[in-house]
């Protein structure tokens, strides 16, 4: 990419974000956005901080258009969005923990990621050293004579990530679940600030290992937007190929694990076979089972060999054969339906309020998919349908996954059939003129991943914000489990399969 002409044409200017310009608002403007979120006229995509400002990304309801607004916080505080729109609450608590900016009159001022153990307060902005201790944490009360509490975690019984769940139960029935996270907080925000593009890309690929392709893709797209890099068509197809392989591998893993939590091990074993074959094929095509570090800003780093195309078609054909059988196995097992139907219900209204993405949102009537709504390459050239249901229970979240497996298989065929020849990575250079900003919204298997970043002209990341879809799914799990029995929690939790690492960052 040649930036020479641009350097002559334009004078250094304040950073503007591409492809969605960032608008600076005053306090009233900020509050107006918060109110429109509360009314449902807009949906909250993310809320994040910097040392002296806060930013909010929203989705306009009428047309899926993304807007980013910013508010300067010279006093170290900003009007709380969470006070009007609860989905913002945890994000505001995280901003305070990391950047020390306070949400004024926020209904919940408890720390979220900071457990008092870092030896430092607000580490990302003017850090203040403290003696490393353990903060006490006041769980929300649930009062009543027959209630008892069940604390679970952070170390869980399965091979899964750590987090704490506090159940208040009446006999077997859950009255309240409260989540407490932050256990896997690794300080990604601070590590990203000052990192080179290469190091930043490695970090991004390790934010949530199951979504490594989607995260790398989102980061790459944001860098490419910032520096106006044109990705070669073949690279966009290879990216989509990896993204769809990652999606179906995770879906098969999820479906198997959900059924296993309902004690139906046969499905778990069968789905495990499909998942393993996908990962092996991924390793043979791209040299890594999870396809980590295969997407770089500008394109991809590994090309697909001709013999791998044949092997991929064979794999797709076999999965196309297996999928209806597995669907029949799931659908015809009534004892399994007995566990999944009606369990862990999420209403359409809640899914909409929380702008809940992925299969959780789509199983509750929110048909948002960044591949369609944003339409990044190559998806506008491909034909596919997204899964959708309004049932909102564990069963619906399984069926949506089955529907999307079928959609992804069709996509994989199209991608392989129509993949253009040509280079796989753009030759681009840093402009070395001024700071740039870029953003991207990419559909991972779990839902839409949002990335916003500001890059210095020498290619060093100044600030990079990564928002996992789990931020808007975890709170709904608290709602979904209410009035269910404690023993159905693993089933509900697996049907959500939210990320801990992506959320705790």
């Amino acid at each position, binding site marked *: 990419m040649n930036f020479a002409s641009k350097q002559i044409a334009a004078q250094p200017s304040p950073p503007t974000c591409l492809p969605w310009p960032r608008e600076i608002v005053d306090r009233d403007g900020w509050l107006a956005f918060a109110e429109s979120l509360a009314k449902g006229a807009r949906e909250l995509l993310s809320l994040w901080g910097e040392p002296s400002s806060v930013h909010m990304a929203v989705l306009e309801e009428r047309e899926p258009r993304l807007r980013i607004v910013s508010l300067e916080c010279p006093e170290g505080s900003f009007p709380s969005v969470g006070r009007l729109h609860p989905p913002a609450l945890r994000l505001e608590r995280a901003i305070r923990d990391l950047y020390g900016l306070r949400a004024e009159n926020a209904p919940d001022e408890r720390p979220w990621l900071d457990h008092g153990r870092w030896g430092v307060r607000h580490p990302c902005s003017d850090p203040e050293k403290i003696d490393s201790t353990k903060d006490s944490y006041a769980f929300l009360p649930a009062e009543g004579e027959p209630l008892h509490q069940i604390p679970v975690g952070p*170390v869980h019984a399965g091979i899964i990530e750590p987090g704490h769940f506090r159940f208040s139960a009446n006999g077997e029935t859950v009255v309240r679940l409260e989540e407490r996270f*932050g256990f*896997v*907080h690794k300080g990604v925000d601070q590590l990203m600030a000052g990192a080179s593009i290469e190091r930043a890309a490695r970090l991004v690929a390790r934010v949530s290992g199951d979504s490594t392709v989607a995260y790398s893709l989102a980061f790459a797209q944001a860098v490419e937007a910032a520096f106006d890099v044109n990705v070669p068509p073949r690279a966009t197809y290879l990216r989509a190929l990896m993204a769809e392989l990652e999606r179906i591998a995770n879906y098969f893993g999820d479906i198997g694990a959900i059924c296993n939590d309902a004690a139906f091990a046969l499905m778990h074993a069968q789905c495990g076979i499909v*998942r*393993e074959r996908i990962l092996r094929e991924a390793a043979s095509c791209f040299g890594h089972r*999870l396809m*980590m570090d295969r997407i770089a800003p500008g394109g991809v780093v590994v090309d697909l060999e001709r013999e791998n195309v044949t092997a991929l078609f064979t794999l797709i054909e076999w999965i196309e054969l297996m999928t209806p059988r597995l669907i029949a196995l799931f659908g015809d097992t009534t004892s399994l339906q007995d566990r999944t139907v009606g369990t862990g219900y999420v209403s359409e209204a809640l899914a909409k309020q929380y702008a809940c993405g992925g299969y959780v949102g789509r199983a509750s009537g929110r048909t948002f998919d960044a591949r369609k709504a944003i339409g990044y390459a190559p998806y506008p050239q491909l034909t596919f349908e997204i899964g959708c249901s309004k049932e909102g229970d564990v069963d619906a979240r399984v069926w949506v996954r089955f529907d999307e497996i079928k959609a992804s298989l069709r996509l994989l065929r199209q991608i392989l059939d129509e993949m253009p020849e040509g280079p796989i990575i753009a030759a681009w250079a840093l402009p070395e003129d001024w700071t740039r900003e870029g953003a991207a919204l990419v559909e991972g298997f779990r839902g839409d991943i949002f990335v916003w970043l500001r890059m210095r002209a020498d290619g060093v990341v100044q600030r990079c914000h990564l928002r996992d879809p789990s931020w808007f799914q975890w709170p709904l799990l608290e709602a979904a489990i209410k009035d269910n029995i404690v023993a159905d929690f693993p089933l509900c939790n697996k049907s959500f399969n939210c990320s801990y690492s992506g959320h705790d960052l």
Partner: protein
Amino acid sequence: MQKFLLQGLLRRALTEQAPIPNPTSIAELGYTLGRTARQKLGRSLSIREVDAGSCNGCELEIHALNNAYYDLERFGLRFVASPRHADVLLVTGPVTKNMREALERTYAATPDPKWVIAVGDCAFDGGVYCESYACVGGVANVVPVDLHIRGCPPDPTTLLKGLIAFVDTMS
């Protein structure tokens, strides 16, 4: 369901076997592991997995050890739900400061004799997270480690190889 069960009876198992000694084959690893584990622990080794801050990549591959291709349990190795049932802690992640106490308490809850295997590059030295204010960096900084299995993440074959090396060196 009958169809799946019938196929299970009629078809050969997917579990990979390579009876001819081959240093890289899973089956050979399994053979040695089976013999050594039998001597030391009467064929049984219970493993408790602890995620101390991993990105979930290592967990995915540890999970894969249980699928039909690797079938870890045929070697007498199995995952258990509580540290109180465990001989071995399989620890992943750069040990976040928020998980440090949980790891220490899990270790304390594991009965003697006990061993710790650190899985993945993060668990070795903190990996990409080694400079973070939020990470301790390396499992060995918190609990004594008997073996490191490197990789980001290590694939299931590497994990099996690591487990064998561990059983061989177990005192």
